[in-house]
């Protein structure tokens, strides 16, 4: 019974996304006209982001990485406004989770700070590049990036407690080590990291992509913390949210100052994804995780392909 509830919910999510695709594909929408009242689009945005909030939690990804390609592909909003909203969406989600994770020791301020500083600077550069590029080049680059993200998510393996022989000199100087209490196992977990310079270079690249495309960057932050630096998986996930909240704040100011943030897009999206995430957490125990993750990867691949073809002028 609970499993059928989970399957029904996933089917419902798919139907919401399909409905959005049908509205988007209507001739009037394609012609840039508005055959419906103004409030229909924000309402549809709320419904879709609610669905994204559910599946994002179930698939273990951030909502931000789903928002830009899917809303950019299926809604009539210009990519400038979609990216601005995407940054605020990822930021608000990270802000909602970070305080509890910090308080429980499942996120480390000291671990996130150096990465946040590097990522902030490069995310500002990314935002400036993104706002300067023509739409077709931006769509092409976004499509290629989203397809690459889908590939990374499909192929990436994670390690609960990677072996780290010792802090590297920079990591030791920055005191990138500590202890957190794992409630699942009931024991304290000591952690330390290495390869800090290489990781900071990776965070710099991730920051550019986050700023340029308005994406949440948990899909990249977690593997860098976990697989490159050797931080435990739970700490990597928690610290990634904290890192994202700082990096996206920096890039968000660039979009805000340019006027690329429309409250009518941001507010329904933030509320929708937050409510969806709450439902997602409740469904986490009963939903078929593999099926959900497969659906998300398929959605990302489709939305990425659509953006790529739109940018290349093949599927305008």
């Amino acid at each position: 019974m609970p499993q059928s509830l989970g399957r029904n919910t996933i089917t419902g999510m798919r139907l919401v996304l399909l409905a959005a695709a049908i509205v988007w594909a209507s001739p009037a929408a394609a012609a840039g006209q508005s055959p419906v009242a103004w409030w229909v689009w924000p309402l549809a945005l709320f419904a879709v982001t609610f669905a994204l909030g559910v599946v994002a939690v179930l698939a273990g990804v951030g909502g931000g990485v789903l928002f830009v390609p899917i809303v950019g592909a299926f809604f009539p909003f210009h990519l400038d406004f979609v990216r601005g909203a995407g940054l605020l969406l990822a930021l608000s989600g990270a802000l909602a989770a970070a305080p509890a994770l910090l308080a429980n020791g499942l996120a480390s301020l000291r671990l996130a700070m150096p990465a946040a500083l590097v990522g902030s600077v490069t995310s500002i550069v990314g935002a400036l590049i993104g706002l300067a590029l023509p739409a077709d080049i931006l769509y092409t680059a976004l499509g290629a990036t989203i397809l690459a993200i889908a590939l990374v998510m499909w192929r990436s393996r994670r390690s609960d407690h990677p072996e780290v022989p010792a802090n590297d000199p920079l990591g030791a100087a920055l005191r990138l080590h500590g202890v957190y209490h794992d409630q699942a196992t009931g024991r304290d977990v000591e952690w330390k990291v290495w390869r800090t310079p290489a990781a900071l270079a990776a965070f710099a690249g991730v920051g550019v992509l986050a700023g340029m495309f308005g994406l949440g960057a948990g899909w990249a932050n977690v593997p860098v913390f976990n697989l490159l630096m050797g931080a435990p998986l739970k700490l990597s996930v928690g610290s990634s949210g904290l890192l994202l909240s700082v990096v996206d704040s920096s890039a968000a100011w660039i979009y805000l100052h340019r006027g690329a943030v429309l409250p009518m897009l941001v507010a329904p999206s933030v509320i929708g994804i937050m409510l969806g995430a709450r439902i997602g957490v409740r469904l986490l125990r009963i939903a078929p995780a593999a099926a959900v993750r497969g659906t998300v990867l398929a959605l990302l691949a489709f939305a990425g392909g659509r953006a790529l073809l739109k940018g290349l002028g093949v599927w305008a």
Partner: protein
Amino acid sequence: MDLKRDPQDIYARWLGAGAWLAFALSLLALFLYAGGVLAPFVPLERLPQLWGLPVERFREQTGAPTDWDWIGYLRYGDYVGLAAVCLFAVLSLVCYLRVLPAFLRHGERLQAALVAAQIVVLLAAASHLIPGAR
């Protein structure tokens, strides 16, 4: 009490309170804006013809302000909404400002330097002083 607290605990406490405030004010702002309590600068009925345009053309068509000029438009519902959205972006800056003295008290000078540098970056972004951002 904060004198003995770890900077991470202080950051968590301030971020938690700030995030709660930002969400509450965003909901209120959405009600004032979408509910028609405050008139919008850009009429809601015009939005579907405008939100498909690049941001530069959107500004040309509407006369919408850039930088911090929108502060002068807070009598309009859409800019009250924007002010609420800005709270999300300003929270990290507030928290970093709050933990800087805590790191110094703990004798963590390298961490304090990182915090100070982050504050400079966030302030530069928020104040729109970044070269090329205008």
